[in-house]
């Protein structure tokens, strides 16, 4: 599989688009963090700042009708799949017009219109659900691909084994992506994970697996594209281990005192947007255009944030809607 992409022959227009997408993701999350300060984002936020190349490289390589499942740290994935930034910010602020009508929030963000079947508040739970989504695709004879992204912490939960085995036994069209940011909440994942890591485990369960520098947008994309093609060709599930680094704390309020400052400083230098900008610069893209990508993204998210801020809350009647068809949720109570 071509992880060793030819850097002398880069599609600059495409890289530029990826650079823009990564900035949109980062600006979206910065707006979400601003929402915390403004006390309008009331639930937990798990930023993916520093991990944007995984969202852009993997999710950006999916077809519009492909399916995505994500985690609690899923803003980037969701935006990359095509969700509207304003709808997302409305959801994060719990407002009308949010992707889930304000009922899900950050940890349950989903946009079925663009094939995004949900973030998940339970670590690892998306893995078996993704296997099942792929199972349905196979049963229906479609050529869609399911992409399931989870963290390095999820590989220690049972559903990792059960879901990968399921996908391999039934030869299902699913790409599993372990977005490895080094931490599970406040714990270094390596301290609680035995053996050779995600790819080694996946191979032991019969899935071809690759490791990739998750901060290198070109590497991520090249590997993801090849794997998605194999999956779509009916070759069965594939596994991608993308190594990246979480530049923020676990949540928007976690200052991450458990990690040395110099570690963070060193890692900041390797973050994916800077590296993409360097590539653009090297290819002759003027600084002004590189900066414009940031400012355009920030302007988009600023406007979206303001719209969300001004949007109304859903009414209390929403508490009783979409529970189920059968039976009245208010029966017995109140």
């Amino acid at each position, binding site marked *: 599989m071509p992880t060793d992409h030819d850097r002398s022959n880069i599609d600059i227009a495409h890289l530029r688009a990826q650079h823009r997408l990564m900035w949109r993701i980062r600006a979206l999350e910065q707006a979400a963090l601003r929402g915390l300060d403004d006390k309008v984002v009331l639930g937990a936020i798990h930023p993916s700042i520093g991990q944007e190349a995984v969202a852009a490289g993997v999710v950006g390589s999916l077809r519009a009708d492909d399916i995505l499942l994500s985690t609690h740290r899923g803003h980037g994935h969701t935006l990359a799949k095509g969700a509207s930034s304003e709808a997302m910010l409305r959801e994060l602020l719990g407002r009308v017009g949010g992707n*889930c*009508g304000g009922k899900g929030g950050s940890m349950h963000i989903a946009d079925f219109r663009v094939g995004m079947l*949900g973030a998940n508040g339970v670590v690892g739970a998306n893995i078996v659900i993704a296997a099942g*989504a792929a199972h349905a695709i196979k049963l229906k004879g479609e050529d869609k691909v399911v992409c399931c992204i989870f963290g390095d912490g999820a590989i220690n939960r049972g559903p990792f084994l059960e879901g990968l085995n399921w996908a391999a036994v039934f030869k299902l069209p699913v790409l599993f992506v372990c977005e490895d940011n080094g931490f599970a909440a406040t714990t270094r994942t390596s301290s609680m994970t035995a053996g050779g890591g995600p790819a080694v485990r996946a191979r032991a369960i019969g899935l071809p697996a690759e490791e990739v520098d998750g901060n290198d947008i070109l590497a991520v994309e090249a590997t993801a594209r090849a794997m998605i093609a194999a999956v779509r060709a009916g070759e069965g599930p594939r596994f991608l281990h993308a190594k990246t680094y979480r530049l923020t704390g676990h949540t928007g309020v976690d200052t991450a005192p458990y990690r040395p400052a110099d570690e963070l400083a060193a890692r900041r230098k390797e973050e994916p947007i800077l590296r993409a900008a360097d590539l653009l610069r090297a290819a002759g893209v003027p600084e002004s255009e590189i900066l414009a990508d940031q400012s355009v993204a920030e302007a988009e998210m600023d406007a979206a944030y303001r719209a969300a801020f001004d949007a109304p809350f859903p009414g209390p009647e929403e508490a009783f809607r979409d*529970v189920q068809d*059968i039976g009245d949720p208010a029966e017995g109570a109140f």
Partner: protein
Amino acid sequence: MARISYMEAARSALAEEMRRDRLVWAVGEDLGRGGVFGQYKGLVEEFGPERISDAPISEAAILGASVGAAMMGTRPVVEMRFSDFALCAVDELVNQAAKARFMFGGQTRVPMVVREPIGMWRSSAAQHSQSLESWYAHIPGLVVACPSTPADNKGLLKSAIRCDDPVVYMEHKNLWPLEGEVPDGEHLVPFGVARTVREGRDITIVSWSAQVHVCERAAETLAGQGIGVDLIDLRTLWPWDRAAVLASASRTGRLLIAHEAVQVGGFGAEIAATVAETLGVKVRRLGAPRAPIGYAPPVEDAVRITEAMTVAAVRDMLGR
């Protein structure tokens, strides 16, 4: 009408629905060889191994994959073998299947049937005998069905398969061989409509699943003693037929609820509380002690709600 078993009724319901809708499929361990109780026998021959699918021993994946498959527009019928093993997949059922529609603001539905056989079955002991229907009745988003007759096992299973909500479908292991008249073809039993098993004016008994048959025998005995029992088979616990129960209880003025499950925190409490809140009539429950189920027959029998106990409870409530 044909006289068939509870097991055969379920099998024909599934076969009919699979013929009607090619998006219906079943998945679970050993289904290809008919399932652990034979309730899938012959189906793989008709529908093939993709639609009557074996599964690895991985309840979390069986249930979780079915959630994904349901969100993608298929209708999985999920076999959990014993309700006890479904405890290996509670996150998938309660945090995922039951909540997806709500959390995602109505963007999706999770049409799946989770078959969880319940109840005591001679000497199956603590990990193969539980009746946990009250758990699922407590969880928003879930429908709970507990059929007691072959006809209902056909009609409710068909309704469950067509339902867009996730349904926890609890067959009773002791009922598999029970025979009864079952309407042919399109026989659908709606959720939330109780069945009046027999009428009487002295007391109302509400029950479900295998316990209905124990109550029926008790009612027979009581009839011989001049006591008329209005016996209601609830059939589904969510939704449950409040109207039927309240109407009967207000007629008779006395309500006994009998179930095989542990009494403390059992669904009988919900019914008793509702009726007490609403009518102020005499209520009483008859449920199992709060003890695991033992292996040795006398130990197992000691937590069984019997006909004699039912008769005694009724007589006591009537003061005769």
